[in-house]
Structures are given as C-alpha cells and as structure tokens.
C-alpha cells in the first residue's frame, strides 16, 4: 500500500494558511470562508479515504503495519537527525479522521459564526495553520517532529485565543496559554534531549519497537532508582500534561475560552488538548516497558486526579464555556487514566483501546457541545448561564443536538459516550480499583454538571432577552447535525478491531455489570440535575449553603490560578527578575560606569600636576633627576 498521498492532508491546510494569510486584505470574506472549507473538505475526504484504505488493507498477518515516508530535515550527528515525514499507523489514521472531521465541521460552522467579523479571513488563515500543525503532529514520524508541530500547535492556539486581540482578557488568556504550555514544553524538550542522548534516536519506530534494543535491554544509567528512560518519559509527559491541561498545568484551559467558540471546539475540546493523550499513546510501548510502567502509573494517577478535580470545579461554574472547558479537562483525565491502567498484549490492552475510543467519541460530542454553546452565545451574546433559560422554544435544533451530546457525554446507553466510557471503566476495574471508583464517581458528576448546564440553558424560567433569540443559520446547524449523528453512532464502531496496544485486533465485549453500575450512576446525576434545575427551585442554593466554604473553594477553582499568580508575580518577577534588573543597573552597570567615573575623577585630581608653571616642571624634573641619581648610586655602590 502506498500512503504517501497523506502528505497532501498536511500540505493543503498549509497552503490555505499561506494563501489566506498573505491575501488577508485582498480576499473577500465570503470567498475566504469557501476556500478554507473547500480545502479542509478535501483533507477530510482524503483522511476518510486513508482510514478506509488502511483499515481494510493495512494488515499483514493480522498485525497492522506502519508506513513511513520521510526525509532528513536536520541532521545533528550520524545517529540523531530530525526527519520530516508522515507515519501511518492505526492511531495516526484515527487522529487524522478526528482532526479532519472536527476541523472541517468547524470551518463550515465558522462561516456562519464569524460572519461580519473584521478579521474573517485572518481567522480562516489561522484555522488553516492550526489544522496544518495538528496534522503534522499526528503524522509525526519522530519525537522531534512531533515537538516541532507541538510548538506550532501552541502558537496557532495562541493566535486563535488572542483572535480578539483588542480585548485585554483575550490577550492575557493567549499569553497564559502560550507560556504555561511553553513551560510544559520545556519538560518535553528536556525529556527529548535525555531520551535521545541515551537511546541515540528520535525515531518512534525504533523507540517503540517492543523487540528492539531500547526496550529489551534498557539503558544502563539510572537516577534515584529509576532508569533514565523513565525520567525522560516523565519529562515528556509533563509536555503532554501541559497541552492536555492535566493538573497542575490546566490553568490555561478555562481562560482559553476567551477565543472564538469554534476555536474552542476545534482546539480546546477535540484536537489539540488530546495531543498529550496521543503523545502517551504514541510512545505507549516505551511507557509500558520501562521500569515496569512506572511512568505509566504516573500518567494514570495524574489523569484520574485531574478528571475528578475538574469535574468538581465544573459543578460550580456559570460560564457555559468554562463548564465545558473543565469537562474537557475531566474527560481527558479519563483518557489518561485509561492509558495508564492499560497493559500491552491482546485483551489486556483494553485501556489503550478504550482511551483512543474515548478520544474519538469525545472529540465528536465535545465539539458538538461547544458548537452548540457557540450557537447559544451567538444568539444571546452572553456566556453566562444565568442569562439563559427556556431557550428550547427559540432554538429547537440547537436544543436537540445539545441534548444528544449531553446524553452522549453522560454515558447514556446507546450513545457513543456510553460505549467508550464503559471500556475505560472496564479497563480500570481490571487493574486498579481506586481509579475505577474515581472513574465511576466522575461519571456521575459529569452527568450532573452536563445536565445542570443543559437545564439551565434550555429549560428553567425564561429570562428577558434584549432581542428575541433565533435559531442559527444552516451553515451552523448542518455541522452540528453531522456531529450529533457521529455522537450517537461513533460508539458502534468496533474499535478493538482497529486499535490496540500491540496492533493486533482483539474482541472487546460490553461488560454488562459494569455498564449497569456506570449507567445507574450517570442516571442518578441526570435525575439530580433534573430535580435541581428543571424548574426554578432553591434546592441548588441550599446545596451551596450546605457545602459552604468548600463551594467557595470550588467556585474559585481551588485557587490554583492565584497560586500561580503568586509564584510568577511575587516570586519570579518580584523576587528574581526585579532584583536581577536592579543588580544589573546598580551593580554591573554601576561598576562599569564607576570605572569610567573614577578615571575622570582621578584625572581631575592629577591634572594640576600639568600646571603650566615652568617652576613646577623644573621642580619635578630636578626631583626626578635626584631620585634617579639616588637609584643609580644605590645600584652603583651595591
């Protein structure tokens, strides 16, 4: 099979970016929207074609093969070189499908959503740049290529969050997102340096080969009881955690909601934020085999904690996009958890499959949720759920698709989220009871906050609106309907036939017992939300009062932002940078100036010697002669 055409999936969005970016002044908005959508449409079709080709013909001896097309971009040493190219294997193909689907839908949707905006063309240019970077990240053949596109993704995210660049909150959110992820990328980069130094390669295929020397023999050096590779992997995971908004590097994600809503749907829900999950999945064999999966344990616990943490915060937020943002964080934690509890071979690799499965379904319903939220925001120009109510009357389509997505994420039987979540819980149940319990609890919480959101927006009492809300145009509803379709039916794909840790298809069954438990918990959540929020009641306020300060803590997102602000402003800026600037001005520079000034002062002092009085000169002359005479006589008589 030849998959080299996949490179066009990469190049089309780049071309879009260049065309729209350079022509942003000349191309008319209507045309640029069409150009963007058309380009992504082609990428979309190519991706589905690739998926079809690969999953039907990509197997040899029942094992999915890897196809690599690359050339050397920079070579450092004989062994270490950065290649650019495409790598086709099950997870990259799956990601291609995810990214191209969501990106295409968002392009279509944005044509309606962004209509009339000043930077319409610029917006599509940035979307093109993002799609290019994300495809590049997905198709990376080696860890350094991944890092390169990882950075590019970060930058496109920066540009898109800061799209409304005159809004100070958007600018600071963009900066925050970039700097926090950059900080995480520092870990990533150091991990790469460490890993590449000890293994002598960047290449995923060499690194991940379970029969290869790196995994079977390991590396001799160890540090604090763990092999260097484990350390490197943990550092790399910091990078992944930064992009995927895992605790404690999640602080940028809620703020990132300052960007236009389609961007949140594309970048901060479906694609970029799962890059961390993809990274761990990409290096799964290495994670799994080095030091008996120590790094993987870390992934599992970070994921589990983040999912719980974010779910709790999501309960109390009023900004609908922020609720969705924390929900995203929580669901990504789920995926991390699934990866972390996974094993390698056959059915034991259920977690790996489940994680990818959930990534896939989550992308669909979360993007849909965001697009739905965007549709609502578009209609009433507010993000706050307290400004909304009874919108089902005005926005029937949005209401239905939103409900589908909410049911899907809550794990309602028959919807996509149900299947993927069930696999995750099954994997956790088999391997780690604690994480299983967290998972189940989070499932309940998810159902609750999702329906809190849903009821608050579409039910409840009708708020007074400045102008009557109206349903969004077809350009926005059609993509939502498509995603709603996916949110239901994506769950029926037999993922285990396509994706598994060891590349061999296996049979995964629905575990009825676990499914019943999870469903019950989910239903309890929904019912509670129904009781609380379906009709205006004061139950919610009573709950708030009952939890007291814990509610406050949750509402303020456990003050993590404040801690960060304290560390950066008070410690790094005030205690490090400012003293350094002071030091530079008053010590280093002052020393240099002092040398200059003391020269001037000395010369002021001694210029009197050159008095212009011949008597003084004569005196110096005779004095000098006398001194010389003394010296000469002294030497002479010695």
């Amino acid at each position, binding site marked *: 099979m030849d998959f080299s055409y996949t490179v066009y999936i990469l190049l089309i969005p780049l071309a879009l970016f260049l065309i729209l970016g350079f022509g942003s002044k000349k191309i008319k908005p209507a045309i640029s929207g069409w150009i963007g959508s058309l380009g992504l449409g082609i990428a979309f079709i190519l991706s589905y074609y690739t998926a079809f080709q690969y999953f039907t013909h990509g197997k040899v001896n029942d094992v999915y093969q890897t196809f690599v097309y690359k050339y050397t971009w920079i070579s450092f040493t004989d062994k270490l070189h950065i290649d650019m190219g495409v790598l086709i294997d099950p997870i990259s193909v799956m990601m291609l499908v995810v990214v191209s689907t969501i990106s295409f839908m968002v392009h279509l949707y944005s044509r309606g959503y962004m209509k009339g905006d000043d930077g319409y063309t610029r917006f599509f240019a940035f979307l093109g740049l993002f799609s290019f970077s994300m495809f590049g990240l997905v198709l990376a053949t080696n860890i350094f290529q991944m890092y390169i596109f990882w950075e590019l993704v970060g930058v496109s995210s920066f540009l898109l969050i800061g799209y409304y660049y005159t809004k100070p909150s958007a600018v600071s959110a963009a900066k925050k997102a970039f700097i926090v992820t950059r900080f995480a990328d520092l870990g990533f980069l150091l991990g790469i340096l460490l890993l590449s130094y000890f293994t002598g390669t960047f290449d995923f295929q060499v690194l991940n080969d379970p029969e290869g020397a790196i995994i079977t023999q390991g590396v001799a050096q160890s540090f604090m009881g763990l092999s260097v590779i484990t350390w490197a992997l943990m550092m790399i995971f910091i990078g992944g955690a930064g992009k995927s908004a895992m605790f404690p590097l999640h602080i940028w994600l809620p703020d990132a909601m300052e960007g236009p809503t389609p961007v949140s749907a594309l970048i901060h829900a479906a694609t970029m934020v799962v890059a961390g999950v993809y990274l761990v999945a990409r290096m799964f064999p290495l994670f799994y085999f080095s030091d008996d999966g120590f790094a993987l344990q870390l992934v599992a616990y970070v994921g589990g904690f983040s999912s719980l943490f974010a779910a709790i915060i999501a309960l109390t937020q009023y900004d609908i996009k922020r609720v969705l943002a924390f929900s995203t964080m929580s669901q990504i934690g789920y995926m991390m958890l699934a990866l972390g509890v996974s094993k390698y071979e056959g059915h034991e690799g259920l977690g790996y499959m489940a994680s990818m499965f959930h990534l896939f379904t989550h992308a669909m319903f979360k993007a849909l949720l965001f697009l739905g939220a965007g549709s609502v925001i578009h209609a009433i120009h507010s993000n706050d759920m307290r400004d909304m109510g009874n919108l089902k009357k005005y926005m029937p389509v949005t209401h239905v698709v939103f409900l589908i997505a909410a049911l899907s994420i809550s794990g309602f039987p028959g919807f996509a989220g149900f299947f993927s979540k069930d696999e995750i819980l099954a994997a956790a149940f088999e391997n780690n009871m604690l994480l299983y319990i967290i998972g189940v609890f989070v499932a309940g919480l998810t159902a609750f906050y999702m329906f809190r959101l849903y009821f608050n927006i579409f039910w409840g009492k009708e708020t007074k609106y400045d102008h009557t809300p109206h349903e969004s145009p077809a350009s926005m509803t059609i993509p939502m309907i498509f995603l709603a379709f996916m949110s239901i039916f994506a769950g029926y794909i037999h993922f285990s036939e396509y994706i598994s840790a060891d590349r061999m298809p296996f049979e995964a069954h629905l575990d009825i017992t676990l499914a019943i438990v999870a469903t019950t918990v989910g239903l309890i959540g929904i019912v509670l939300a129904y009781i609380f929020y379906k009709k205006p009641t004061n139950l919610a306020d009573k709950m708030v009062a009952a939890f007291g300060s814990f509610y406050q803590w949750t509402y303020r997102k456990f003050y993590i932002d404040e801690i960060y602000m304290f560390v950066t402003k008070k410690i790094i800026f005030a205690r490090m940078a400012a003293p350094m600037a002071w030091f530079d001005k008053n010590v280093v520079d002052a020393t240099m100036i002092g040398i200059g000034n003391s020269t001037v002062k000395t010369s002021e002092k001694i210029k009197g010697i050159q008095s212009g009085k011949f008597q003084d000169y004569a*005196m110096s002359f*005779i*004095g000098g*002669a*006398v001194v010389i*005479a*003394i010296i000469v*006589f002294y030497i002479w008589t010695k």
Partner: protein
Amino acid sequence: MERIVFYILALIIVVFAIASVSSRKILRAVIYLLFVLMGISGIYFMVDYSFLGAIQLAVYGGGVIVLFIFSVLLVHHVELELEVTPLRKKLIAGAVVLTGLGISLWAILTFPFQQAAAGRTIEVSDIGHKLLSVDAGGFILPFEVISVLLFAVMIGAIVIAKGKKLNK
C-alpha cells in the same frame, strides 16, 4: 691666611646667596646677588685667575646687576614687597634641593680627585691666544659664535624691549 680669606668669602657667598633668594624686597635681593657675584670673583682672584675675576666684576657687577636694577626700577616700586611663596611649596622645594645637595655632595666628597701639582700662572695673553687660535684645540669658532650671539642679543633686546605699548 688664605684659608681664612677663603672661608670668609665662602661665608659671604653662601649667606648672601640665601639672602638673595629669600629676601622679600627685590632691590635688596639684587644687591645681595651683587655681593655673591663679587665673592665669586674674589675666589677667581684667589686661584690666580685675575682676568676671569676682572671679567666677572665687569660683566656681572658692572653690567648684569645694573640691568637688573634698571629693570627692577622700571617695573616695580622700590619698596614693593614680593609675594610670599606658599610654605608648602617652599618645603617641597627645600626637600628636593636638600636631597639633591646631599647626593651631589656625597658624590663629590667620595670621588677621589687626582689633584695635580701647582701649574703655571695663566696669563691674559694665553687666554687671548687660545681664544683666537685656529689650531687644534683653539676656540676661534665658539668665540665668533659668541660674538654673533651677543650682537644678535643686542638687537633682539632693543627690538623686544621697545615693543608696542598696548595698554594705553
């Protein structure tokens, strides 16, 4: 006898030299200088260089000192007191001079001079011959140079001193 005369002369020379460089009245200083010059001419006479002593008296005592006196009278009131030199400067100068004196005397007094036996008395004619001699060791050329110099100085002194009066 001669020793005593020499010491008296030496005393006069040194005392008046000091007085000459430290007196605050300029005319007195000039007169003290005259005594010094005369004392030195006395020493010339004592070493039997009568011609030289005579020149010393004539040129210095008769010419130079008169010039000084004239110039002093031209530019000063007779009773004008000179400005006092700052003590610091005096001390530094004194230190330099004393050190220099010390090292010079030490050099002179430790140097073993080979004193020759008494020679013949120098006649004026000898000097005249020597000055105008064109043989090896003759001084005709410097002599002529000096005479030209003196002539030039004469003209120069007139030209300069005549000058143009600028401050009316």
